[in-house]
């Protein structure tokens, strides 16, 4: 960062500009005490974009003496706008994590034993390539699946397309955003994308349903959330937990978990019943409004009260606030929405409520984004994938899934009653499946069935311990990646650059993919020498100046109209070409064409049990950052949030350590301290996701707190698109001293016992390598 002349202090009105510079010199000159300069300003400042989460904020990385000293926001970047969340500021914590994977490794012992031999890259890559070739020859390319999370995964996806497997899965779909995107697509013919096209900063009324902005730190959204509050926007938060966002709200609606659809229907009942909806908008763009009008008539606030536990008055009051501020009312679509298995319908209900308020395509609602046109790199063309995606039990299941279902691919790895497994090998890129997919026991079973498992990762996460070959990747600060040109208010392109060379013997993902591509006979798909050449080719094909991009980190284009009222085209890629209040597509597939309340979908916790909810901490991106020592200074363990009255009933006080045990008798491997609080519904407990880690080589986080994922033995699959609803587990408390006493007396912990059993039986059917299966 350039030193600015002190005269710029005039922006704070320090003194008259004319007098300032001289006085300034005197001021500091006369100051007899030494000012300590920590010396963290970089000799070089390299622009790039972040990967502490997946928002991809522009950063400026300061480098001094070959070390990254600090990371700031890039003011030119449309997403960070010069500011960062704590994770982005703490990126050096991953770069300099002493637990990083340092060398390629090959397993020499049972799967899961975490015993590896360090080998050369050549040996490791040859082994991966041999297994890829063997699987292709024996079973076809589709028997190899990729699980991927993170932007570097694009190189692996490319490798898999070239190799010929359609089984390219990301848990970010069916375990996270998928139902939302399908629900909005069914309604508007568009998803909301990432970064989401939410015009939060211009909202006059922002409705958050379980969406915990401020704890979920997607930077631009949080920046705009604050801006909206500064501008006097009314925030309405629906959450069983008094979230940070709830604390900023005019109304907090502590809904009974699992009943959101009832509330959404009641809101629509009020808004339509009282004639508060946007008639012109609905008439111009809507399809099937009359059906919706009739449909929501029985769903009065009084009716909703009996399901949600929310008084009719606040339901009416909030509906009227939403209507009063429309169309600048944004009912936020959320992001992690795989909660109860009816999530596509809940997302549909949110989409419909927005449509009634006329907020889609309108200022303060959802803007119409545009992306910079960066032509793709020209390859000879991917092979046609003849094979079916192996992610569902039969081809008719989950008919509206439009991406591969990670859970389904995992299931297809386990031989079924009717035949052999369809998936024989996995590559796992940056995705710790045992904490990402529900029911980790099922994931471990699948892993046992695999002929071959290779992981590309930065840290020795749990999945790494189960791998046959481990390829240590360079962090985002040590590699150039695919360019990033997302749809946004302003079209732009950002570049990820190598800030410092890869440490240890780690290699960037592009290099790994390219080396593997060459080894499996696909050199035509990797004609570029490195990712810089690749990125340059694309950027120059777009007619942009690569030097500018490398210097600034971003090139920002011209903003066109982003609202209908500014001239953005109201285009809806639905069957009717309109906003579908009534979905023919859903009706044709035998689903409710409009969101409908089904009493049997709501479930009360059994006596003495509480619904297990999980979410985010602002300083962590789930398990990806919980080993980051810098961020761990702020939070190094999760706690179990328990409603104060419930805690009193159990005799629990804050700090008491408990294990959680779920309805299926599965007990958490580790304990966590109780947080007694008035911030949570008495029916629920809450933990931050990403703790209770079992990988011993994650020395910072190992054994700290509770892993919610291992307690998610039950999940409800969304019949529409295969999302795994995970908020359907109930847990009870076991005092740590009681558990640890019994385990000392010889009765082992259930989950730990199970894990040991799994590990003991975990010799791969093929042996470690090369043996015919």
């Amino acid at each position, binding site marked *: 960062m350039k030193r600015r002349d002190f005269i710029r202090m005039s922006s704070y009105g320090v003194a008259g500009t004319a007098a300032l510079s001289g006085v300034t010199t005197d001021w500091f000159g006369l100051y007899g005490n030494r000012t300590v300069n920590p010396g963290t300003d970089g000799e070089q400042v390299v622009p790039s974009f972040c990967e502490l989460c997946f928002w991809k904020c522009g950063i400026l990385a300061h480098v001094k003496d070959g070390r990254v000293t600090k990371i700031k926001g890039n003011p030119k970047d449309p997403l960070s706008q010069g500011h960062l969340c704590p994770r982005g500021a703490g990126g*050096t914590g991953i770069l300099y994590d002493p637990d990083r994977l340092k060398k390629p490794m090959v397993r020499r012992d049972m799967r899961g034993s975490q015993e590896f031999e360090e080998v050369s890259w050549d040996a490791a890559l040859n082994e991966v390539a041999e297994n890829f070739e063997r699987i292709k020859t024996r079973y076809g390319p589709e028997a190899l699946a990729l699980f991927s999370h993170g932007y570097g995964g694009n190189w692996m996806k490319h490798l898999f397309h070239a190799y010929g497997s359609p089984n390219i899965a990301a848990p970010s779909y069916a375990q996270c955003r998928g139902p939302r995107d399908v629900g909005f697509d069914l309604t508007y013919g568009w998803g909301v994308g990432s970064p989401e096209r939410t015009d939060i900063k211009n909202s006059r009324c922002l409705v958050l349903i379980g969406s915990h902005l401020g704890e979920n730190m997607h930077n631009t959204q949080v920046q705009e959330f604050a801006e909206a509050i500064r501008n006097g926007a009314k925030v309405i938060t629906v959450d069983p937990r008094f979230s940070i966002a709830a604390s900023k709200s005019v109304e907090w609606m502590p809904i009974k978990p699992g009943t959101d659809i009832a509330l959404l229907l009641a809101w629509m009942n009020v808004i339509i019943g009282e004639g508060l909806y946007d008639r012109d908008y609905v008439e111009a763009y809507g399809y099937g409004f009359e059906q919706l009008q009739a449909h929501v008539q029985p769903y009065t606030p009084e009716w909703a009260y009996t399901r949600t536990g929310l008084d009719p008055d606040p339901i009416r009051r909030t509906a009227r606030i939403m209507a009063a501020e429309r169309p600048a009312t944004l009912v936020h679509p959320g992001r992690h929405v795989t909660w109860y298995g009816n999530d596509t319908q809940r997302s549909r209900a949110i989409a419909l409520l927005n449509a009634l308020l006329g907020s889609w395509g309108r200022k303060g609602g959802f803007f119409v984004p545009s992306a910079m046109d960066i032509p793709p790199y020209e390859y000879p063309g991917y092979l046609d994938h003849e094979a079916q995606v192996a992610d569902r039990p039969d081809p008719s299941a989950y008919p509206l899934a439009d991406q591969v279902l990670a859970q389904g691919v995992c299931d297809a790895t386990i031989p079924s009653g009717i035949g052999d497994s369809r998936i024989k090998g996995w590559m796992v890129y940056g995705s710790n499946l045992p904490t990402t997919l529900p029911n980790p026991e099922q994931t471990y079973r699948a892993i046992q069935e695999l002929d071959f498992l290779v992981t590309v990762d930065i840290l020795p996460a749990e999945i790494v311990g189960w791998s046959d070959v481990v390829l240590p990747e360079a962090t985002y600060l040590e590699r150039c990646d695919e360019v990033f040109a997302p749809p946004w208010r302003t079209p732009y392109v950002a570049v990820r650059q190598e800030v410092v060379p890869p440490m240890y013997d780690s290699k960037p993902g592009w290099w790994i993919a390219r080396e593997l591509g060459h080894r499996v006979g696909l050199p035509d798909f990797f004609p570029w020498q490195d990712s810089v050449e690749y990125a340059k080719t694309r950027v120059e094909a777009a007619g942009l100046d690569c030097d500018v991009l490398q210097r600034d980190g971003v090139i920002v284009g011209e903003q066109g109209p982003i609202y209908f009222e500014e001239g953005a085209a109201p285009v809806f890629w639905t069957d009717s070409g309109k906003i579908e209040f009534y979905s023919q597509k859903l009706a044709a597939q035998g689903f409710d064409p409009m969101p409908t309340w089904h009493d049997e979908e709501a479930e009360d916790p059994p006596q003495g049990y509480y619904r297990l909810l999980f979410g985010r901490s602002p300083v962590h991106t789930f398990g990806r950052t919980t080993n980051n020592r810098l961020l761990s200074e702020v939070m190094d363990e999760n706690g179990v949030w328990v409603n104060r009255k419930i805690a009193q009933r159990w005799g629990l006080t804050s700090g008491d350590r408990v294990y959680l045990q779920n309805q299926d008798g599965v007990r958490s491997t580790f304990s966590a301290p109780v947080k007694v609080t008035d911030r949570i519904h008495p029916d629920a407990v809450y933990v931050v996701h990403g703790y209770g880690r079992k990988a011993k080589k994650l020395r910072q986080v190992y054994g700290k707190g509770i892993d919610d994922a291992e307690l998610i033995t039950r999940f409800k699959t969304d019949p529409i698109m295969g999302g795994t609803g995970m908020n359907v587990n109930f847990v009870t408390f076991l005092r740590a001293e009681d558990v640890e006493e019994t385990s000392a007396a010889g009765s082992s912990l259930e989950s730990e016992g199970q894990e040991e059993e799994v590990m003991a039986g975990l010799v791969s059917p093929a042996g470690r390598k090369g043996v015919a299966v």
Partner: protein
Amino acid sequence: MSDVRFGMAIDTRTCVGCAACVIGCKTENATAPEFSRDWIYTLLEGEYPDVRMTIRSERCNHCEDAPCVTVCPTGSSHYGPGGTVQVNPDKCSGCKACITACPYDARHIDPRSGAADKCTFCMHRLESGITTTSCQEICPTQSIYFGDLNDPDSKISRALATREAYVLKPDAGTSPKHFYLK
């Protein structure tokens, strides 16, 4: 210039307590592991479901009448440029009198130097002409105001003039220059 009086204010309406300020400070100032010069305080009042929460990003208050300066036997703790409170580590004996005297728990001993350590309002940045503190610069919600309290047109002065604000422990009589906007 002697008229400059640096102050800070936190907009508690928009601060989400994310701790970007903490990590931003730690990396800018290369503070010792496990020690930080700023921190997040939250207070919950009321009973479920009628609760209110206060969130504050806190640090040294750079008091006008700073007990840490008064008690410092070596002159290490002193009033620095712009009315800030600073520590000169060269003069610090590590006696911890200032740590005891500070009503705000804003100080610690840096285990590397053995000297008292705390927020400097990023004096090294101000000296080099950068007009923001690192916490202010990083803050994603732009909830941190910093500037000259003596200048009625500065953003912080305008905010303090138009909005209700408070200081911590006013009874301690320290006259903090760190404010919280309601």
